């Protein structure tokens, strides 16, 4: 069984794909923006955020319906140099009793092969191999699924989905900033996508200024709205090749039926600053020696 885990691609940016749709995002005129098809908007969205590597100190806050919170701090490193096989390294620094728990995920290029995942628990002082997860499973016990962290609508994703422009409208993002958006409906069309995805439909609000997807509604296989994501505090970061990527520093996912939500805040965010290759190895996970 192959589980494509494009971990945290949502947070990822690089302009390597920018030319794929033949447009320079920052120079686009209003008229050119007007002329974009919904599919082109989604390609531009990918282009606006894609990078080769990224790193950040992530603060994940899980809040249940009663308002109780669990907070986790994690260092996250991603290497997307091979676009078909992402490498992700996670190192938890809090809560205190799980400090130094480390997880490495190495995707395989072959879609039929399982990803390699390694877990280091300081209490056991050893590395254990752990099984891969399905796309539709929860990411690290949060409201996000692994699927939610992939770039669902980029060059690859747009082959699996049909896009329809529902309307254009101005909405407030989670921080109350007004954004003029395209409202685009994405429906999985390929057999593979229909089978693998937990969504039967998504509605995406793409900001017309920086092409950031600032809000997304997810509909489950029964056609019910079951999750809502909001992204805000979108900031520019210089990336490889002199490009600029725009990335939200605050992302929140709420599960409608349970009222549970996960808020992710990115700190010390950097893209394309070069992460040593050895970080993404089993031995580094075990002893943190490069």
């Amino acid at each position: 069984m192959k589980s494509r885990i494009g971990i945290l691609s949502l947070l990822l940016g690089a302009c390597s794909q920018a030319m794929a749709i033949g447009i320079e995002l920052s120079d686009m005129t209003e008229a050119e923006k007007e002329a974009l098809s919904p599919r082109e908007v989604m390609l531009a969205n990918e282009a606006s955020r894609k990078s080769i590597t990224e790193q950040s100190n992530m603060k994940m806050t899980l809040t249940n319906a009663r308002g109780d919170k669990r907070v986790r701090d994690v260092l996250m490193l991603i290497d997307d140099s091979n676009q078909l096989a992402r490498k992700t390294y996670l190192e938890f620094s809090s809560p205190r009793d799980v400090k130094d728990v480390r997880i490495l995920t190495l995707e395989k290029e072959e879609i039929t092969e399982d990803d390699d995942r390694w877990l280091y628990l300081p209490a056991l002082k050893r590395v254990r191999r752990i099984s891969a997860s399905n796309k539709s499973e929860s990411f690290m016990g949060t409201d996000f699924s692994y699927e939610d962290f992939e770039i669902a609508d980029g060059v690859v994703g747009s082959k699996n989905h049909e896009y329809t422009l529902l309307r254009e409208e101005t909405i407030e993002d989670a921080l109350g900033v007004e954004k003029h958006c395209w409202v685009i409906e994405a429906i999985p069309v390929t057999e593979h996508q229909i089978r693998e995805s937990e969504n039967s439909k998504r509605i995406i609000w793409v900001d017309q200024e920086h092409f950031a997807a600032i809000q997304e509604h997810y509909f489950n296989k029964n056609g019910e709205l079951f999750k809502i994501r909001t992204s805000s505090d979108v900031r520019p970061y210089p990336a490889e090749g002199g490009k600029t990527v725009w990335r939200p520093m605050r992302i929140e996912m709420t599960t409608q039926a349970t009222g549970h939500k996960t808020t992710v805040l990115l700190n010390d965010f950097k893209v394309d600053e070069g992460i040593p290759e050895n970080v993404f190895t089993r031995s580094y996970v075990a002893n943190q020696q490069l």
Partner: protein
Amino acid sequence: MKWYFKAIIDWPRTTLLGLLIATVLLGLGLPKLEIRNNSDSELPESDPIVATKERIDEIFGDKSAILIGIETDNIYNTDTLQKVADLSLELEKVDYVIPNEITSLSTVNNVVGTDEGLAIGTLMKEVPATPEEIAALQRKVDGNDMIRGALVSDDHRFTAIVANLKDGADQATVYRQVYDLIRKYEGPETLYASGEKIFSEEIDSGVQADSNLLTPLSLLMIMAVLYFFLRSPRGVALPWLSIVISIVWTLGFMGHIGLKQSVVSSMLPALLVIIGSSFSIHIMLHYYAATRDNGSLSPKQAAFSAVEHLGRPLFLAGITSSLGAMSLVVFNVLSIREFGIIFSVAILFSLFLCATVIPSLLAMLKIQVRDTDNLRGTRWLTGVLQRMTWLSLNRPLLVLTAFALVATLSVFGIQRIETGLDVASIFPDGHRGKVSLDKFGDNLGGVRVLSVMVEAPESGGIKSPEYLRKIAEFEAFMKEQPGVGHATSFSDVVMQVAKSLNPEWGGVGRIPDTRNEIAQYLFLYDISGTPGDFANLVDYDYRRARIQVTLNTSDPDDHARLYRQARDFWSANLPQGANVEFGGDTLFWIAQSEYVVKGKVLNIILSVCIIIFFVSLIYRAISAGFIAVLPVVMGGLVTFGVMGFAGIRLDIAAACISGVMAGIGIDFSLHYLDRLRVHRRENNSDIPEACHKTQMLVGRSIIYDAITNAVGFFVVTASGFVVVKNFGYLLAISMMATSISVVLLVPVLLLLTKPRFASRGTAGETTEPGIAPERTETAMAPQ
């Protein structure tokens, strides 16, 4: 009262028109009548058990769940597993189901050590197709103590899907949709449904169906017996009309004021039949006595004679019954309290209607004469009535001794009364509700839950080895007790992860020695599942853990014993500074049962006091109060005694019925005493003679009433539902016991005590001279 009867008899048409309008207006409330079936609201919010339960429920987000069981020779085959996956998905579409909170093989989170490493995440990510994949799945299940025995039976023949429901789920809707699914997926596997909502609906609809069939049947039976006694269509039709209108008024009134119908108040129609027939038999027999004794009466005069002397006893009986019903408010169980209130109103409605509908219709109908003493087929009864009085008057000590013996025997029976509701006994054998309850009990340890919450003094405290070991010990202790099917706790999660990460332990889980180790194991589990995966076992800041003990016994005594054992364990083992609380539906039933017993005792005391006080006040003699109450107490003793010997449990319905019977009993006593005084005043008779005369009219009314209702409600015992069956038995038994006590015991008491009040005319009047009660051997021995 007489002016009132005069008015309605003079203007019968106007009266009936007024009643019609009132009936239409009150009837408009019928469509508004709602049914309440949320058992949580039964107990007072302030109750410590309710408060604890609410607190535990709130912390752990307790929700009502539905369970679907799948049974086949071996569930480990692709088709059955595919059904589990499909059903789990389709259940999401059922109204009120929380889509993220469905637990089955295809959704449950699992941490298990495998040859390849550590398998985490959904247990059955894809339905296995090959024998190897199936075997791998089975190995995972067998290696997880939280899944084996809880989701899959040890013999692999049974697996469950559990779906949590949103608050306020409508049981009828859920029931219908779940059974639609079951029909769709059934075969070759057998599917079962369970869970509180399914269960309640099975009971409600089953009881409803039985009541719908049996209540009219018993009403018909009552009418037939009444016809036998009176041989007159009007003797049946007039009481029937009054009763039907009183049912419309009562239920309509409930609808108007927004009082919801509960299982208890669903007995109202049947009780109104009893009350109404009691009121109206008196009126009808008085009518026939009047027309027989005086052949020249006009219809209006006859109608007036029927109620002329009845006004006082009817009114007094109505008020005392109503007060008796009101005494049910001492119960701390909401549905009983509400029932007490509505029933006291219902009695007044019934009294008003019988005393209005029957005389005003009689005034419009031609005179009818019936010699009720000499009707063919009932003459023997006349003989029996006479013999009873003869026995009381001539062998009073014998009668007293007999009653004393019966009372003593009853006390023995009462000591054997069991309380609480045995769920398994609700359904008739073979009913699918019972079958499914048994299936879940046999295979997965039951559906009844006793919850224990252990609370550490600070956040994260539960993660300490000390707490987790105690919890694990408690679980092991409970699992050894008979009646416990399964137990799950947060310690299981830790042990499951620990043994998966430490294959050298040989598949045996244990609690790690350090807090950090525990925290990291939990963390691993946490990040491998969905949010709130074990929210039902530990709260968000790891301060409180809940142990869920499922019980495979439905005996309330077992429940109470297990609760005591759990409490004792923790009072001896609780870590320093920690706190423990108990909850779960089992505890709720235990509490309710305690309330029913406590309430019943209070209620009996209160109704006896009300009767004594009220009757003493009316007759201005304490002796009247005691004479009136003794037969009622006797009737109660016998009824409870029979309950004890017959194994009928004192549940909510039984508690209400016996409360109601006190009201009926006092009606009998009051009619008897009042008529007796009329005879003594009008005819200057001595006590024995007055007793004989009273027996022929009032005694006959009482016995006829008891027989008609006993026969009628005996029909109800044909129901397969024990609740309904017991309801029938209790009504039949208490009617007979109370009526016999009144007609046999009151004459004895009067004769032996010769109370002053019995020689007076009406309440408040001075004693008439010359009617010195003296004992004479009566010449009226039975022929």
